């Protein structure tokens, strides 16, 4: 079957704008979590977020696009520009139907929607913007990336909460295997606005700690929820053979994927994550012993951490594989999380270095070999990335270094 390589990446992360800043921060254990600045969070029980630093949209995008785009779409368009440039791809020079876009979303352009809802209810329906019809909806990033870059091939948009980013990359791989040579894919997300904040609080998984180093502690006995973040990554995926022929540099290959859904709440059946990992390895044609590092979903809630630790333990054995959660430096990015972890995993493989999980004192009960505080040098040929979405979505991706 066609191998699919990642040939370009654009990163917009709370701990670094651009791949270089992100990776140097991530290697160095530098966190991007801090008090919310995009609105005054004083009245809310949670006040921390991972906000993308130093992003001024007008430096990256034409002014024609600004009135019609949400903040997260501007981040996504910029990341897509960077990913294509990084891949050395100029879309205008390629057949337009040979390039597609598949992204994940969780809440669409929620901040844009908030503004229009406010106008609707405080001023009247005629005050709602002409751009509301698409600026907030879930498909906006795929549409805008397609238009900006002239990509007319198969496109798609998936919503599976935080698992969706990996589902999007897998759908990109599917489209490449069906004959579209190049797909721009990933997820950039974020709803750091009062209306999004209130909706996320209602989900019951947000940490109410106001100490940036104590708020999000996955696999720690003190775990008490997560910090929401914004951003993510856009990747360029290509038929590996086509990429080789054009002399492209490849970060690695997406060689395995699987998704499952957990049993109904209250069921006594086992959660789906272990099976997801096993199916993804089977899809890649690998055994557990082939995996050099796991990038965990790292929910930061005791029940969910236990489920993940048990799945990893069941497949790899106690302390059987290095596990890390660089999202302790960014917060959870919803649809952006999986693609950002995939970017981090590929950079780890290229650098021979596992980035750390910060702030966490791991609970011994979980029997995980968590990479803590300092990056760990290692030869990494295969990485497993996990992502879970609220409701019961489980997704896993296997990455392998090219030229294995």
């Amino acid at each position, binding site marked *: 079957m066609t191998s699919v390589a990642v040939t370009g990446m654009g990163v917009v992360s709370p701990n670094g704008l651009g791949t270089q800043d992100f990776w140097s921060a991530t290697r160095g254990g530098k966190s991007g979590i801090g008090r919310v600045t995009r*609105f005054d969070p004083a*009245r*809310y029980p949670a006040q921390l977020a991972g906000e993308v630093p130093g992003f001024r949209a007008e430096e990256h995008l034409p002014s024609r696009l600004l009135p019609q785009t949400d903040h997260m779409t501007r981040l996504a368009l910029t990341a897509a520009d960077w990913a294509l440039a990084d891949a050395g791809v100029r879309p205008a020079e390629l057949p*337009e139907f040979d390039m*597609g876009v598949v992204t994940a*979303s*969780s*809440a669409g352009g929620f901040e844009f*929607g*908030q503004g*229009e*809802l*406010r106008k*609707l*209810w*405080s001023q009247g*329906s*005629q005050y709602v*913007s002409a751009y*509301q*019809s*698409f600026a907030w*909806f*879930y*498909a*906006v990033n*795929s*549409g805008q990336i*397609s*238009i900006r*870059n002239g*990509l*007319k091939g*198969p*496109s*798609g948009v*998936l*919503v*599976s909460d935080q698992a*969706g980013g990996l589902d999007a990359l897998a759908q990109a791989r599917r489209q490449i295997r069906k004959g579209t040579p190049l797909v721009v894919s990933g997820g950039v997300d974020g709803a750091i606005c009062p*209306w999004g904040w*209130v*909706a*996320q*609080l*209602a*989900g*019951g998984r947000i940490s109410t700690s106001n100490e940036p180093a104590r708020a999000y502690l996955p696999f720690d006995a003190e775990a008490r929820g997560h910090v929401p973040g914004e951003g993510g990554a856009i990747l360029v995926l290509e038929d590996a053979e086509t990429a080789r022929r054009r002399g492209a540099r490849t970060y690695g290959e997406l060689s395995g994927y*699987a*998704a499952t*859904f957990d049993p*109904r*709440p209250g069921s006594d*059946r086992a959660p789906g994550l272990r*099976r997801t990992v096993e199916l993804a390895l089977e899809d890649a044609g690998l055994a557990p012993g082939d995996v050099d590092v796991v990038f965990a979903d790292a929910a930061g809630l005791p029940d969910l951490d236990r489920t993940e630790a048990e799945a990893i333990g069941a497949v790899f054995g106690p302390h059987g594989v290095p596990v890390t959660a660089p999202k302790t430096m960014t917060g959870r990015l919803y649809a952006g999380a999986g693609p950002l972890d995939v970017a981090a995993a590929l950079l780890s493989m290229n650098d021979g270095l596992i980035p750390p999980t910060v702030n966490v004192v791991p609970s011994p009960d979980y029997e995980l070999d968590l990479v803590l505080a300092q990056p760990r040098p290692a030869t990494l040929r295969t990485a497993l990335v996990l992502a879970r*979405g*609220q*409701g*019961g*979505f489980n997704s896993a991706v296997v990455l392998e270094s090219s030229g294995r």
Partner: protein
Amino acid sequence: MTGRRVAVTGIGVLAPGGVGTENFWDLLSAGRTATRGITFFDPSSFRSRVAAEIDFDAEAHGLTPQETRRMDRAAQFAVVATREALTDSGIALDAHAPHRVGVTVGSAVGATMGLDQEYRVVSDGGRLDCVDHTYAVPHLYDYLVPSSFAAEVAWAVGAEGPSTVVSTGCTSGIDSVGYAVELIREGSADVMIAGSSDAPISPITMACFDAIKATTPRHDDPEHASRPFDGSRNGFVLGEGAAVFVLEELEAARRRGARVYAEIAGYATRSNAYHMTGLRPDGAEMAEAIRSALDEARIAPQDVDYINAHGSGTKQNDRHETAAFKRSLKDHAYRVPVSSIKSMVGHSLGAIGSIEIAASALAMRHNVVPPTANLHTPDPECDLDYVPLAAREWTTDTVLTVGSGFGGFQSAMVLARPERSLA
């Protein structure tokens, strides 16, 4: 053809004019319309005041009081349609390992209705910028992220396989089914509960379409407001609804003696990379999607018996689409019947693609092509056979159904009889 093929073995539909597949087909085959003046809220300050609403009583359709409270209207639709589809298919899901059964739900605008209502409360009628979390309902997160729809459907049927929401605007209803078909073909699942649902008739949606004059202002004659391909058309009529299918690997469906409505034989999607809301008149990208879907189905253009059109009733769309049919099917475009059921049930955004797949499968079942209602004086630039006003008895073995949506997405799907000869 080698490899796994995918059959539609169960259908559940909630559409304006009546809950359930039977009521839906009665409406279509009689050419009745279900568009009316908006009753869900006071529309008097709006430019467009017409919609295709469903009279829906969740508890009467088997949802519990807590399910009704927890789910947005669109999620309720999805679950009710799912139950009908399961019953219709006669499938015993417990004969399948739960992780071999997956779910895809298409939705363009998710829990818009719930979000609109809840925003009004937490912002105290738009007065508060920093909205008040103490007034938020506990299930607000499920409105925020509409993958909750897929979760609800998965819980309803006990599915533990790959599950997601597909949200490509107004092509979601085709793309959701297309995604599910791929999962069965590649072997990631044996059964998919696939469909789509939207319930967008709320002030924020009406307001945003008012702002771009996409919906019709024909509120003096709401029953005849949706007028695809007619010279007098001036915008679409917003609708709501859901359709859900049981999709099975064809050989397994045959082994259990299932009734097969159709094979999903081909599917493709393309983007126009042109404009978030506008369409180029040449229809080139939709034509490309049609060609690709026919190729995948190994069906020649002249073998298409019926086209279930997007036919939204906007000036731009109906010409764009007519051009796309001519571009992809050449002369056959003039011979094949084409119709838009949006003339009767309105445009339910992400849901309509699946509702139109249901109409296509039912057209094959009954060998009857549903009409385009309200089509009295065709636009001279829309010069195909749009089956005006009355349904037509017509041997229908192969159907092409298409969709077009904001974001530039263009999708096409081919339904065919599985027993056709595969040259």
